[in-house]
């Protein structure tokens, strides 16, 4: 399953990374090298094997329904590259 430049363009857009036209070709090569290499996993028989869903043997912990956080809008927006009146702001989104 090797990728072509069109796929790389699509993946780059999915990942929201601008890739220059001239960089697509080399990037395609790099990704194919890695993908070819990981494809050796195909050799492993995983019939009936459960995928790993937890690294250590433990249960999900639940917290109580209490308000213990928030209430500090200035800390939330402190590092924002752009904002106004307590909001984050971004280039206008057209729906």
């Amino acid at each position, binding site marked *: *399953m090797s*990728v072509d430049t069109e*796929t*790389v363009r699509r*993946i*780059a*857009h*999915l*990942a*929201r*990374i*601008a*890739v220059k036209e001239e960089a697509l070709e080399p*990037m395609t090569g*790099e*990704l194919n*090298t*890695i*993908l070819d*290499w*990981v*494809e*050796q*996993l*195909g*050799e*492993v028989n*995983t019939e009936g*094997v*459960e*995928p*790993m*869903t*937890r*690294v*250590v*043997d*433990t249960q*999900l*912990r639940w*917290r109580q329904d209490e308000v213990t956080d928030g209430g*500090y809008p200035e*800390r*939330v*927006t*402190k*590092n*924002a*590259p*752009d904002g106004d009146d307590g909001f*984050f702001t*971004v*280039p*206008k*989104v*057209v729906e």
Partner: protein
Amino acid sequence: MTELTKLTMAEARDGLKAKEFTSVELTQAHVEAIESARALNCFVTETAERALEQAKQSDERLQSGQAGPMEGLPVAIKDLFCTEGVQTTASSHILEGFVPQYESTVSANLWRDGAVMLGKTNLDEFAMGSSNETSFFGNVVNPYRRPGDETPLVPGGSSGGSSAAVAARLALGATGTDTGGSIRQPASFTGIVGIKPTYGRCSRWGIVAFASSLDQAGPMTRTVRDAAIMLGSMAGFDPKDSTCVDRPVPNYEASLTGDVRGLKIGVPKEYRLDGMPGEIEALWQKGINWLKAAGAEIVDVSLPHTKYALPAYYIVAPAEASSNLARYDGVKYGLREEGTDIADMYEKTRAAGFGAEVQRRVMIGTYVLSAGYYDAYYLKAQKVRSLIAGDFKKVFETVDAILTPTAPSAAFGAGEKSDDPLSMYLNDVFTVTGNLAGLPGISVPAGVDGQGLPLGLQVVGKPFDEEMVLKIADVIESAADPIAAPQEWWKA
């Protein structure tokens, strides 16, 4: 005061307690060492003022008998741990200037126990790398050099700033994080000790995430005892991390009994790679001999799926990373590159903010999760991961720990592997299995290669059996010839 930087953490702790010197003196010595070692580029941010302020307070607590277990001990923090009020970058342009409004649990634990922060250490961008050459803030240089050769060597990665700082005696210890070997491999490259604890032993809260199911924080120090001290402070339950395990933190120092008699140590045959350098093979044998001599029993074991660990890792880690790094979008913090519309802003910001290796991994991760490929890549890798974990589980029914080399080579020259991602990835071949299975692993300096460069051995233990791992590493450390401190060539 330079002699103070030569002390181990345990010696410094005892000296402070005995009032042989103050924390301010100890800290000042390290601050000066850092200033004179900028050629190594270990730090992204130095925090000398804050360190001296903390040291002053530590001295007061030492005076009043309220000292914590790490009171007054200056350490460095990998710049992946968020530190309140101190820039945290993950060595990425995209986070340049980001000042967290919160403190990571692990660093907060260190401050709770009295430790002093010297600064934030350099790393591979978002911890993605094995040579500290992907940092936006430049390469870190290994304090060790080949004899008569000024070629800068890499300090390993991703915790390269931490490993170099500890090896160069700029800090008594440093925090690292390990996703595929990022504590152990740099420890091996710089002749220091590094332990990756069991997944869930240290909280991940406040650590910039790379691959959530693999990331784990741990200490990097010059001795096994120091690692035990520092791990004792870093580890512990944190209700803010759903994957952090609620179990008491043992007194790790107490596990350093030197007694490994009767322990069964597994030696996995699959780790004897084709083309492995003879000196690595020889070092491994030495380790086996030392443990045998100390009364342990060596058992040949098999971990049949070892070969598939790296490819599985290079699916799982990039997949998780592609999602974890989606939050760096120019909206809430960090870099923003203006664009014609929102999508353009995202794409330009992330293209400018992420370096080549990060982009490559985000791309791979995005691809393996995309429609139609999930089963073939991600699901397959997580199944292989179950098999790898199963291999260990089975072996640990009969052995107490496993001994392997830490890395397939000693430190290499800067630029030697940076054009070939695959050969760079192979650095993690011995360590990555521990991350996939969530097991504790330690790298302990055990010898040098033909050019006098440090090499480490790895001990891998059962889940939450850090005590066993430390105990065995301590025995190896005692048996091995001590690795000489690097020449301080960086002092102009």
